[in-house]
């Protein structure tokens, strides 16, 4: 960290207006990987445990769970979590391939990022249609 504190002769330009930065496609996939992971930690895991537990107990617990989940707001939450899982899984597989030095060049890296982004959304749409 010491190197960061050295005085610089010219101030380096800092441009971090998040609304004006045009994110490259792989960077977009990367930040969504992080966002989807955080969503699953905060909401996805407890919701899934609650749902599976309710289903295994059946009866009242299951009725309560399905009543809550039939709320349109909760359906939206469930859909976002489905997307989170799919995007995170696909982006993770892409990451493992990059670790194996597959698709490291700019063009294939951009292409695989586009595939991850689109496939995640398409699979989420398919799940949405099948669920509702």
């Amino acid at each position: 960290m010491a190197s960061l504190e050295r005085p610089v002769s010219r101030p380096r330009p800092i441009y971090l207006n998040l609304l004006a930065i045009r994110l490259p496609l792989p960077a977009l996939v990367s930040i969504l990987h992080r966002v989807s992971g955080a969503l699953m930690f905060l909401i996805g895991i407890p919701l899934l445990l609650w749902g599976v537990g309710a289903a295994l107990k059946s009866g009242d617990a299951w009725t309560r769970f399905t009543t809550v989940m039939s709320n349109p707001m909760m359906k939206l939450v469930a859909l976002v979590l489905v997307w989170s899982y799919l995007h995170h899984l696909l982006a993770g597989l892409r990451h493992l391939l990059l670790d194996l030095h597959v698709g490291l060049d700019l063009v294939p890296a951009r292409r695989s990022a586009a595939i991850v982004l689109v496939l995640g959304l398409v699979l989420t749409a398919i799940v949405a249609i099948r669920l509702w």
Partner: protein
Amino acid sequence: MVSASDPSNRLAAGAHYGLADWLSQRITAIVIALYTLLWLAIALWNGGIDYPLFKALFAGTAFRIATFLFVVAVLVHAWVGVRNIAMDYLKPTALRLTFQSAVILVLVAYAAWTVQLLWGS
């Protein structure tokens, strides 16, 4: 340049040197992907998953153990990921350590919850 071998330069709240975390993130990812494939295979094999099949699956010890291993992998994976996020955005050490401690408690609670719902009823 900070030398990794010089103990005086180590930060108590730092990221250590990351290899174990890097590797466990990938190993747990593979476990999670395999468990996902298991569900996909079961669904394809049976033409979907209805409630009796769902109940029957969780009645089997092997399936419960596989599910438990999956959840452990998820929790380890979540720990590495959430800690990475905390290291990037929560700069004050006290705030970060408090947050990370809370995350560990939540993850262990999730593990206990999983055991309870797999073997408790």
